[in-house]
């Protein structure tokens, strides 16, 4: 397990949104993040799936494997996103088929070799990095359906003080009565279904004062990333991706993959 210095940045699903990733890397460096991580789902939704892995490698971002990398890497038939609704699955398949067909073989090989989980340490806290949940790569950890007793059990079962995940596309954080923390770092790939076009990543900061024995919670900051979303929308249209996807990028409201949302998160969206 490697111990990290004071500040690190964590990117959730990128979904081929390379302009947002570029902006987030720049922003995180500017804010003093010494180390950068990405928790998987590099492709899907957006255009030109070779751009995101190129950027991640170029900037030395440590990557955890998401279900997309498992699927694309192994040339599986679907993305294993875990949707249950026929319409959601139809759109997910369009994104997946495009991504799979346009990902170079060298990246597929890299995807297969990515670790499904990583353990790091900051401020004496044991942090487990995963894509969906520590127990399943495509498990959705939504805020409104991840209650405290369940999260305490996940931390106990997996020997961690902090769990970081993504997969849902919505960022949230819970500090538990035990002092443990569970943080969904959000997604760079598409907006957070709130009517705003920016996307989000997460900065963690280890406490500078006091003993570094893991007793101090990590500082959690969700950072909005404004990027050239109109350029992304143009690229998506040029690649023939569905207009429903483009609409999400331009409006900030999710138009697809909605049926998997819990009531609370669904009620706060438009569709």
């Amino acid at each position, binding site marked *: 397990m490697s111990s990290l210095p004071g500040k690190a940045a964590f990117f959730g699903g990128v979904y081929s949104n390379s302009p947002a990733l570029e902006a987030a890397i720049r922003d995180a460096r500017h804010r003093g993040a010494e180390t950068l991580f990405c928790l998987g789902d590099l492709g899907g939704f957006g255009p030109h799936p070779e751009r995101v892995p190129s950027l991640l490698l170029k900037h030395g971002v440590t990557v955890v494997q998401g279900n997309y990398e498992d699927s694309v890497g192994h040339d599986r038939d679907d993305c294993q996103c875990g949707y249950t609704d026929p319409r959601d699955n139809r759109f997910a398949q369009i994104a997946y088929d495009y991504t799979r067909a346009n990902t170079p073989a060298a990246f597929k090989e890299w995807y297969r070799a990515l670790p499904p989980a990583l353990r790091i340490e900051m401020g004496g806290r044991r942090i487990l990095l995963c894509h969906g949940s520590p127990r399943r790569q495509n498990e959705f950890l939504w805020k409104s359906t991840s*209650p405290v007793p369940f999260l305490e059990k996940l931390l106990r079962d997996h020997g961690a003080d902090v769990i970081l995940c993504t997969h849902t596309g919505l960022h949230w954080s819970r500090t538990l009565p035990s002092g443990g923390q569970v943080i969904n770092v959000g997604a760079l790939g598409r907006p957070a279904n709130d009517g705003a076009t920016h996307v989000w990543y997460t900065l963690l900061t280890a406490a500078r004062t006091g003993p570094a024995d893991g007793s101090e919670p990590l500082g959690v900051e969700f950072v909005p990333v404004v990027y050239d979303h109109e350029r992304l929308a143009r690229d998506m249209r040029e690649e023939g991706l569905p207009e429903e996807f483009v609409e999400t990028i331009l409006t900030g409201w999710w138009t697809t993959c909605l049926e998997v949302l819990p*009531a609370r998160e669904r009620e706060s969206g438009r569709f």
Partner: protein
Amino acid sequence: MNGPTVPDGNVTAYPHAPMLALDTLWLYVAGTICNLRCTHCFISCAPDNHSHGMMTLEDVRRHLDDARALGVREYYLTGGEPFMNRELLSILEATLRQGPANVLTNGLLLETGTCRALRAIADASEYSLDVRVSLDGWSPEDHDRIRGPGTFRRAVQGIQALSAHRFLPVVTVTEAAAGVGGDEGRARFLELLRSLGLARPRVKVLPLWRIGAEAARARGYETWERLSSDSVTREGLEALQCSTARAVTSRGVYVCPILVEEPGARLGAALHEALRSFPLTQGACHTCYVTGVTCRT
């Protein structure tokens, strides 16, 4: 404790569902007591079926305490008709303090005042509240044939009342109504709900379990409708809801929400006694495995 009822008496020939983690807890808050007598009900719920009684708030609190220690992720309140339980709103409040909840109802008792109270309870919780309303067909004729005269209109009023209080009810449909399954049936249902004023309709389709009243309405299980150890995969068994769920009623803890009338499916009085693998001896187990269904929302 009774063993599972096994057609050929040999439990070892059947595959066992593992108990991976108790993620989902079903609470039969209304037992088998219902204001309807649906002809397809897999546990023959009815106004005079008291084989499982109402659960009290205290009963529920005891199970919630156990569930907290076990790290349960989500709760389902069902019956019977949950809104017949006079303590339902207090039970729901207590449940939502601990985790997300789903209430399964026939929609007949969803008056405006009740929906307003539900909204207040949902807004006071940091967790999600989903309400599922059953509808069995596109027309009053189809629906009422199964659920009783006048019930379509009242269920629709209930759905609309929920919608008026900012809920996005999940309309649950069984395959008892012809043509419900498949994308076309689903699309038709979504269209019906839009025509009733629901801007964002949600639909869940369930298969029929051929037990209880349904066995008399259509048919029971044939002897070949059983699972055998060589016909299942580990992934398939782990995906069964009984690998991650249990159901509690006034009479104890059962392996799943479907088999509460099956004596052999009672696993104990308390949750911690019920966390063991289960032999899949029943026709209903065959339905779950073959259709890949989950009763979860």
